[in-house]
């Protein structure tokens, strides 16, 4: 077999795990592996949630991308000028052309605050913030430190977003933070969502709505944010409802990486890549695959999902280059810790067909599911070490595989199969 070349667009969670896994699967004379990213800053994104509360600092959660890649992987720090699907080439901004035998799109999701009227206008990073970037999270930290009471609105503009539970976690942690500082009685907290409940999946949504009520956080549903007036402190929905705020914490609209638009047929209207639910091959070309936040898959945009995908994607790249049939292995498995404050967290585990259910993970003696516990909070903290030292290098974690476990879960007789697509 002549030497193949695999090109991976993006050196984040998905791209790094895939590159490292493939580097172990192929000898150096069997395949070249290239990773392209526009910068050399790998952010541990779950850590962003803690920055506004001073529980960590932005610089503590950023490391060099190239340092996470195994020897024998070529890293290109460059913007991508275009993708030529027919010629099987990636063109870098400097003019360099990289031909590929297999292409992996792992370019994640980009924030698009400018898509919402007024969001980046007056007040942006003064009383209107997002904690989805290291800079935004730091700015919000400074603003919270100055905060002495008032009305805080937490809003997600529209789905899909990365880590759909993060804005809820922010609200829970803000409640805790304000109570610790003795400011809670002088502060109104509102959680404002375009969804018709606290979360997308019924059992988890009901449980999380209960937690919001317990913590005296107002829940405003079916609110599609149309306009932000940062100067006046008003958030207005498309149907004309207006909410006042002293501090707005927003999760802006998300879209795919703009350079993907240079390849006709690769993305949908929002810039995400239509991808096969089971094999992770794109609809565009047989030798183009995608994983993580960049895809249009009906599962959470989250690192855990990307981790489960990376295992299947790597296997399918090996199979594709050997001319073998692909594995239909991905079941939509997602697994998320939800910080609820006071040193506690919930854990939810679900896939395409099974909503988050109570029970234990990954089996009868594991972590409690859909229930607040200290153990889950410790699990979330420990996860940062696991991320840098086991997930990114592409090691398997004993007992936690890509397929969603059903043992340990309390599965109702009538539930289970609920097709999402």
């Amino acid at each position, binding site marked *: 077999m002549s030497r193949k070349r695999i090109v991976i667009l993006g050196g984040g969670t998905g791209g790094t795990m895939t590159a490292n896994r493939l580097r172990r699967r192929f000898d150096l004379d069997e395949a070249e592996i290239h990773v392209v990213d526009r910068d050399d800053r790998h952010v541990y994104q779950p850590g962003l949630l803690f920055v506004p509360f001073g529980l960590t600092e932005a610089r503590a959660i950023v490391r060099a991308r190239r340092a996470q890649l195994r020897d024998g992987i070529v890293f290109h720090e460059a913007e991508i000028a275009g993708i030529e699907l027919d010629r099987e080439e990636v063109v870098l901004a400097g003019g360099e052309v990289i031909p590929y035998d297999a292409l992996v799109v792992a370019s994640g999701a980009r924030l698009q605050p400018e898509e919402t009227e007024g969001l980046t206008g007056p007040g942006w990073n003064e009383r209107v913030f997002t904690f989805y970037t290291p800079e935004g999270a730091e700015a919000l930290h400074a603003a919270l430190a100055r905060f002495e009471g008032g009305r805080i609105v937490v809003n997600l503009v529209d789905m*899909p977003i990365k880590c759909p539970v993060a804005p809820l976690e922010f609200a829970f942690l803000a409640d805790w933070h304000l109570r610790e500082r003795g400011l809670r009685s002088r502060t109104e907290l509102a959680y404002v969502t375009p969804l018709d409940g606290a979360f997308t999946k019924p059992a988890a949504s009901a449980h999380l709505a209960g937690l919001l009520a317990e913590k005296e956080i107002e829940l405003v549903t079916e609110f599609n944010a149309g306009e932000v007036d940062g100067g006046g402190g008003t958030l207005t929905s498309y149907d004309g409802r207006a909410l006042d705020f002293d501090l707005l914490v927003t999760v802006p*609209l998300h879209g795919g990486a703009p350079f993907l638009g240079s390849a006709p047929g690769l993305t949908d209207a929002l810039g995400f890549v239509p991808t096969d639910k089971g094999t992770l091959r794109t609809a565009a070309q047989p030798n183009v695959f995608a994983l993580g936040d960049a895809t249009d898959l009906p599962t959470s945009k989250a690192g855990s999902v990307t981790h489960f995908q990376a295992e299947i994607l790597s296997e399918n790249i090996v199979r594709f280059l050997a001319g073998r049939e692909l594995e239909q292995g991905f079941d939509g498995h997602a697994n998320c810790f939800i910080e609820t404050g006071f040193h506690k967290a919930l854990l939810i585990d679900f896939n395409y067909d099974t909503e988050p259910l109570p029970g234990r993970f990954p089996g009868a003696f594991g972590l409690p599911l859909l229930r607040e516990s200290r153990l889950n909070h410790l699990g979330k903290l420990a996860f940062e070490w696991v991320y840098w030292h086991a997930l990114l290098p592409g090691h398997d974690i004993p007992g936690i595989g890509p397929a969603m476990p059903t043992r340990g879960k309390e599965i109702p007789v009538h539930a289970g199969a609920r*097709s*999402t*697509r």
Partner: protein
Amino acid sequence: MTATLIAHATVDVDAEGFLTDPTQWNEEIAEAIAAENGIPELTDRHWLVVRFMRDRYLATGNAPSIRSLGKESGVPVKELYALFPTRPAKLAAKIGGIRKPTGCI
């Protein structure tokens, strides 16, 4: 799921009144559902959105979100709210005889 009579036709609907079988739908049913939900007359702009929703659902098994609807149907989000007050994506889906949009995950 219950059977109900809309515009002289018996159709199956869920608890919130969304048709569960899109093949039972016709234009008269659409007009009846619209009238019941505060839209006395369906204009060409309404029909453009309803047909777009329905075609997309039949082709992909998923109804588009309000945001993709605004980007792809040619009708901007603000106008969608004017045409289908309060909950455009849901209301257009209901009128188009398809299941309630599930939203994203």
